[in-house]
């Protein structure tokens, strides 16, 4: 049980640690900038008000003058929703396709493990960097916030990270399906990035364009709203369930595709 999961996790330990460290340093740096922005005395909210609705929607901006509003925009909407979404889609798009492309898959499948189980365990191994990222970077952000004299609500912080996990898993799920369907890892990865980015744009544009509102529901970004969590303390558990269901569906689809193909 879980041999492949352990193996994948084990061999990625160093990579995961470096990744979490890099994102931590970057986010710590951004959070540390907050006092100087605040001190500059510019009424940033007024500037933000002047942005078109679509831009505000894309950036997740509601208020930049509080630490929560600042984090929601600068860290969670940009880094978590967009960059990390892209990253995990990219990463899991390599999970299967890379092994197929580099002739590792036939050796793996000579082992007594079913194809669907192999896909599931490889996918599960992505959960480790996702959780590590949320725990590690979450703690760093909280600590830096504390250090600059801003108190961030611990529950909100916890929720913004916790609820991002299903979102990132859904993005990874998109990558996984491509990984099983496409032979070349780089193609799978580029397409995965393209799809996640396109969905992000679709949601952004559809949400603020008359007549296109229903389109926003196709994007996973619609179901994770860090701004609402941090500023309004609204935790949309229903949306989280949608993301988990979509993830499960994507994994099943990937297993289905992978079971029926020639290696």
């Amino acid at each position, binding site marked *: 049980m879980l041999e492949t999961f*352990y193996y994948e996790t084990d061999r990625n330990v160093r990579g995961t640690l470096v990744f979490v460290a890099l994102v931590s340093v970057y986010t710590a740096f951004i959070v540390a900038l907050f006092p100087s922005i605040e001190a500059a005395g510019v009424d940033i909210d007024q500037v933000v008000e002047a942005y078109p609705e679509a831009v505000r929607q894309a950036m997740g901006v509601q208020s930049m003058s509080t630490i929560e509003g600042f984090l929601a925009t600068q860290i969670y909407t940009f880094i978590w929703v967009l960059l990390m979404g892209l990253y995990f889609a990219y990463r899991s798009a390599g999970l299967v396709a890379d092994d197929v492309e580099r*002739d*590792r898959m*036939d050796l793996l*499948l*000579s082992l007594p493990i079913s194809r669907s189980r192999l896909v599931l365990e490889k996918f599960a191994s992505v959960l480790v960097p996702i959780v590590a990222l949320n725990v590690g970077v979450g703690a760093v952000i909280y600590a830096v916030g504390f250090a600059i004299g801003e108190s961030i609500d611990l529950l909100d912080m916890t929720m913004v990270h916790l609820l991002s996990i299903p979102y990132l898993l859904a993005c990874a799920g998109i990558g996984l399906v491509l990984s099983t369907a496409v032979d070349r890892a780089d193609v799978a990865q580029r397409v995965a990035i393209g799809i996640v980015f396109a969905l992000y744009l679709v949601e952004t544009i559809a949400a603020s364009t008359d007549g296109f509102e229903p389109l926003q529901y196709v994007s996973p970004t619609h179901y994770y709203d860090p701004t609402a969590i941090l500023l309004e303390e609204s935790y949309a558990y229903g949306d989280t369930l949608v993301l988990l269901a979509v993830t499960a569906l994507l994994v099943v689809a990937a297993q289905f595709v992978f079971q029926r193909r*020639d290696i």
Partner: protein
Amino acid sequence: MASIEVTDLTKEYGDLVAVDSLSFSVEEGEVFGYLGPNGAGKTTTIRTILGLLAPTSGTVSVLGTDVRDEDALVETKRRIGYLPATLGFDEDVTGNRVLDYHASLKGDPRRSELVDTFTPPLDRPIREYSTGNEQMLGLIQAFMHDPDLVIMDEPTSGLDPLKQEQFNEFVDAERERGTTIFFSSHVLSEVRRVCDRVAILRDGQLVALEDVESLLEKGGKRVRVRTPDDVATAVEGLDGAVDVVELEDGVQFTYVGEYNALLEHLTNYDVFDIDISEPPLEDVFMHYYGADATTAVRDAEGIDA
């Protein structure tokens, strides 16, 4: 019960027929050579046996399991070892880590014994391995769970002659243990050295399936006669002499007839020296490939040369 049973197997990729209504079986405990030039369909057959490819038509069963029944095949794979033609290991991990992973899925009762035999640098990351060392690691993982059947795709490519001899001895010892071994090759001499039976594949079709001895028997004997006389033309009148080559000091030919007739015939000449030996398997191979022999042999020897 046969270890591998292939019946009317056809595998098509679109218009390309990789394997064409192939039938053969590998008996328990034998070393079975699967011979043919590159592109003949050897790897396609092996991948079908392992359930990696779905047959277009026909059936394949391995250790009694239909390869299309995935659940059953997963269980059966505990008793199968596999050495692919192109070894894919994760480059960033050590040999030991790979073996640990494989062991966690299929067990490793023979691991330490095999590690002593093949000695790859198990503590080093695989990216530092030479081709030979990767192959050694591949052999260890293929045999470490003490499988009943081991399938090897071109196992000796990338091995130096010393390692190759070690491999041959290893296969002999495995045969003694009762392990069934199926291996593909385009190196004829190695098949001859270690196999009990040989199947020869050409363009996806089986052209011969025989034990090595009768394969050689059909190939006749190579006769080399040293003589001052001009025998080349005379030999052509001898029944059963083919492929006559005139040498500087005599003649060489392949002889498939009676020895008495040959000796009688030779008494007409002044013979300095005579050498009767088994023909190289390459010649036998040519016999099966007929008109396209030259191409086939060039293909067979070309890629890994």
